[in-house]
């Protein structure tokens, strides 16, 4: 292979890189964005739940709930230093826990969470705590909990909000999604939606 062929090959490499950058890096994402904006405007902009002009969150991003009258989600490892708002105020964001489930540190965290959950749910006595209530998810902002974890909290929610247990279960049912075709994925309860309904916002 001589120098001339090498130069020609380099020219081809540059031309292909530039052409691909235009096609795959500009045209392609803009086409997807255009179709998304026309066909799925809510999903394309983050599935934000907005009521009377107030944005209460994304249906796909979990928040931390510890009030008596709220359904609790999965434990979070929150961070307020990564993002700041327009006025410099700290914004909350979440990350994963990154602990091996075979480590002593993990065992201690689980024991602490079990104790905290049981203390808030005296009606459940020593019943085993559903695992998702004491483990951080992969993203750290899982928007869902399992039906078992929601059912575990029904007694407390009914007492704290003055509703009957059946009313609370009705709200949870409305915010529960089933597995695809009954087998793919899991049944899941959207925690933010339940709490917006418990607060009478939704």
């Amino acid at each position, binding site marked *: *292979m001589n120098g001339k062929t090498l130069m020609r*090959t*380099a020219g*081809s*490499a*540059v031309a292909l*890189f530039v*052409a*691909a950058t235009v*096609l795959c890096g500009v045209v*392609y*994402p803009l086409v997807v*964005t255009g179709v*998304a904006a026309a066909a799925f405007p809510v*999903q*394309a902009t*983050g*599935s*934000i739940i907005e009521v009377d002009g107030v*944005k209460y*969150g*994304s249906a*796909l991003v979990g928040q931390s*709930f*510890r009030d008596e009258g709220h359904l609790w989600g999965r434990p979070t490892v929150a961070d*307020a*230093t990564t*993002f700041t*708002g327009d006025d410099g*105020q*700290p914004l*909350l*964001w979440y990350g*994963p*826990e*990154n*602990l091996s*489930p075979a*480590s002593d540190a*993990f065992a201690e965290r*689980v*024991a602490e969470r*079990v104790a905290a959950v049981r203390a808030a749910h005296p009606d459940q006595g020593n019943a085993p705590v559903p*695992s*998702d209530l004491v483990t951080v998810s*992969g*993203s*750290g902002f899982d*928007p*869902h909990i*399992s*039906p078992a*974890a929601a*059912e575990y909290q029904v007694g407390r929610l009914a007492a704290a909000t003055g509703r009957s247990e059946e009313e609370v279960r009705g709200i949870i049912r409305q915010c529960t999604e089933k597995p*695809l075709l009954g*087998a793919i*994925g*899991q049944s*899941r309860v959207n925690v*933010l939606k339940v709490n917006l309904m418990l607060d009478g916002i939704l």
Partner: protein
Amino acid sequence: MSATVGAALVQAAALVALVLACALPLSGYLVNVMEGHPTPARRLLGPVERVALRLVGVGAGSDAGASATPSAVPSAPAAPASGEAAGDPMGWKRFLASVLLFTAVGFAGLLAILMGQGVLPANPEGFPGLPFDTAFNLAASFVTNTDWQPVAGESSLSYFSQAVGLAVQNFLSPAAGIAVAFALMRGIAAPGTGTVGNFFADVVRAVLYVLLPLSLALALVGVWQGTPQTFQGYETVQLLEPVAVDADGNVVAADDAAAVQTVTEAVVPLGPQASQVSVKQLGTNGGGFNGANSASALENPTPLTNLLQCAAIPLLPFALVLAFGRMVGDRRQGRALMAAVLVLLAAGTATVVAAEFAATPQLAAGGAVYLGDLGQSAGNMAGKEVRIGVGESATWAALTTAIANGSSNASLEAMTPVGTLAPLVFIGLGEVVGGGAGTGLAGLVGFTVLTVFIASLMVGRSPEYLGKKIGPAEMRMATIAVVAPALVILAGATVLALAPAGAAATGEGGPFGFSELLYAATSAGGNNGSALAGLDANVPLVNYVLGAEMLLGRLVPIAAVLALAGSLAERAAQPAGAGTLSTASPLFVGLLLVIIVLVGALTLLPALALGPVAEAVAGAL
């Protein structure tokens, strides 16, 4: 085996069957588009292809136009104008020079974008340019189809860096891999011509006919299901339960005595996510738009997206293995390689699934935590998402490491010791069990040539594969292709473990800390990109070592494979005789499996014993 493990394995088997059912027709389509045969897609996109080919300097060429109307064109006068069958075919040296130059151009372009993002458009969050070591690592990572990420995308990369920088390489790096695989297949099938095809035509065709249409379809399903796709800045939302930060910036309860400032709002990262997530999955890339990858409900919102993204991981590698049989004119050869892949995949998947359902005593907390399956997913939910559950997270972990994808829908760090061991072994075996797009098939053929050589020696025959004699030159190249990734991995792990900065980067010390380093070195050298996230990867030493590993782990085997393709292409095919070793028999597949496992075990067992094995033993004591 419990019922939950059994059900999860049945579901995993159904998923793989579904992928195979799609890969079979896709393999025929791949051969047609890559070899310039007429297809309905070519009638539609042919004009774009011809413009692109002219642009990259591949003669007016390709036989696409000519063969679309085979009977109407008299063959003799058409020949000089339309050139050779694949339009300006290259010998292996020019093909390799093209791969290297194209990788270098992509690397330089991506490095410039990442370091200059502060002054480039589409940066609503105002992220500054990346420092050199981070940009070096990320650029090496994405041009080599590794997609290891030292920083989280949502907190460091602009929309421009993501869509115009990283996503472009998400198309080009698998396309280059597919080109290499086709060069190898052409070399084996060539009747002694010595040429292996045109690299630039291959990349154009792989992007235009395969990666772009599939990615577009998957991206639109993603947005429909909830994945963001916008160039607007991030959303700010009101918290129902405000919290506070203390003087050190740690988040505390709103009524905590140490609170110095309340936090009433949260951020929702947006961006052109759907368009990038789809090609991340299809092109064996694996680099998420967000740090949480497909564990994030933004990237992977529903069981449907999880199913499709998981199926997208092995689709192209499987189709390429099946295309191998078509290209060499004997489909049994492709099926034999596929069988070897499926056996290894089944063993690894069953291991991860069983380990994750078994969970750990630390999680069971003496029975205080419910790990059954009534109203929830059974097993180890640490690091897993409720909508996905344990079975589908474990299946994904096996697939994403067997295939050199590296995306994740759960935290690998939060998996059980055995659950992390199987993925580590998959990556450490090299790109064999499916592997990366193209590079996986190349690795598998490298092992097959090695097996042919050993098997022939055992029965005292002169080694040949698919009618081509395997001589010393071929053996040297096959051996380099097979052992280079392991050598790169072990060299990288050694440097990281010995350097103080490497040890300091681990999240936990001891065997687990070594596992983190070993996993990172393996992930980089094996061009996988998945991570045990406890490692503080964004420090200069780690960035440089892993970046170098990624480049060597990709380019050295590619060079060896192309040299192998070139020397096979020069050999005339000889007819199979009575003494020819069958390379499509179950016996041969069994021997191939033994060789793959032996080579993998010999190179990696000592290192594994210091990390995950020690961890599992210590946990059991």
